[in-house]
């Protein structure tokens, strides 16, 4: 299912954060959104998930206008997010976190399968199932945050900074896993500071600057773009 964002404006109080964002994600794609801190990447994802309500503009998913839907309805439509900073439920067990991830998924059979798949993707989570999520390491928490979002049976997975604060070796694992998830047919929107890794993984990318899309291209072209290299790839 296609995700379309049309002329999205978001304000926090009187301060505008997004000033007319246009963005399209086709089914089966990995699309990355690059941008500096405060450019509005997370706000864009939070708007898709319905936690932030835009002042104008439309978000259309699979032909349906989801702009004004409540967040739980949006999850029911197949949009799941692993938010920035992981936000796992620290005083709940890993198992309970996964259960909550599947809160809108009533298909017990599917849940059991997803769980098996998750344990295959992240074997460590199986070992830690009865442990409190807050006692996991940063990398394990990130895995849990992604796994939790997968439990919702998403058609599209929004990932906000999945590599933040992780050791390079873990980043590699996480990105490989994202590719693996995508190969099962889940569309992925990836917000990343680690632009190089994100562009290597993604099919297409958008560059967000102060609340506006300034560049949009295939990932390869963006990687080769001198402007992108200077701003986001450390001079390439």
């Amino acid at each position: 299912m296609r995700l379309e964002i049309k002329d999205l404006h978001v304000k926090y109080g009187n301060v505008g954060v997004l000033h007319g964002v246009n963005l399209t994600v086709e089914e089966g794609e990995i699309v990355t959104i690059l941008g500096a801190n405060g450019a509005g990447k997370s706000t864009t994802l939070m708007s898709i998930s319905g936690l932030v309500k835009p002042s104008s503009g439309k978000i259309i998913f699979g032909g349906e206008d989801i702009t004004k839907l409540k967040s739980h309805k949006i999850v029911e439509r197949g949009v799941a997010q692993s938010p920035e900073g992981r936000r796992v439920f620290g005083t709940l067990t890993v198992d309970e976190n996964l259960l909550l991830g599947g809160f809108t998924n009533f298909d017990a059979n599917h849940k059991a399968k997803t769980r098996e798949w998750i344990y295959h993707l992240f074997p460590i989570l199986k070992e830690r199932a009865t442990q409190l999520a807050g006692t996991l390491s940063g990398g394990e928490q990130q895995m849990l945050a992604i796994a939790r979002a997968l439990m919702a049976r998403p058609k599209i997975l929004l990932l906000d900074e999945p590599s933040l604060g992780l050791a390079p070796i873990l980043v590699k694992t996480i990105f490989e896993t994202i590719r693996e998830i995508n190969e099962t047919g889940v569309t992925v929107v990836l917000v990343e500071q680690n632009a190089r890794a994100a562009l290597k993984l993604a099919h297409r990318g958008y560059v967000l600057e102060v609340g506006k899309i300034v560049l949009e291209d295939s990932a390869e072209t963006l990687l080769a773009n001198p402007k992108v290299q200077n701003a986001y790839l450390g001079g390439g």
Partner: protein
Amino acid sequence: MEEFVQQLTNGLAVGSIYALIALGYTMVYGVLKLINFAHGDLFTLGAYLGLTLLTSFSLQDKMGPLAAVGLLAIMVMGLVALIGALLDRVAYKPLRDSPRLSAVVSALGASIFLQNTVMLIYGARFRVYPQDILPRTVIDFFGMPIPLMRILILLVSLAMMVALYTFIQKTRIGTAIRAAAIDQGAARLMGINVDRVILIVFMVGPALGGAAGLMVGLYYGQINFTMGWVYGLKAFTAAILGGIGNIPGAMLGGLLLGVMEALGAAYISIAWKDAIAFMVLILILIVRPKGILGERVAEKI
């Protein structure tokens, strides 16, 4: 020894009532970080609604006393739960995105409103529960006479607490409530309808508070429109004592406070009963600001 056992059982009975009310404070605080100051008045409403239902239907004549009290409890809990939901809808929901202080002021206003409504409807005098509802049986406990009512209150309260604890720990909705208490935004991202979680919290808490009101009416026999203030304050103390936002903490805090109060009244001076309760609160806050079982520091309201 007998005096000690008498005071201990009395303290446990009163403490379990505090605990039931404290659960309402702590659940709302857990999810909304709001002290629902009108909660004590929902407890009062429970006591008065119980009186009205009891006298207008004379239930105890139509069925056995235990069945009558059981039915009465269900009706009172149901009604107070509805009033709790209505209270949230009218006093708190419109302020959900406002600064927290606005909701606190609204809570104080709702408390005054409810208290005065009860006064206007029922009058300012003490009202008396019919004395013949439950038999005033006294049972023999190792040679010591203990009123059956005291034991019933303790057992029924404990049963309610176990039921609540199981609901919160073991069910899907209960887990959603815990998740919403930890991180509302993340809970929304899981597809949890947080508005519904809040509604449930505003029904379950008041239902328990209403049951506590009914128990006080049945136990002490007389009720007053201001009773919610003292009980509310004690239960709030109990919630802080156990660690606000923490459900087992509220249970433990209530029972502890009840016992300390009863023993203090017996062995120090009855005039110091309330002072002892609040001294305990101050000491706990100095030594362990999180409360006995609290995980996070209670924020100032």
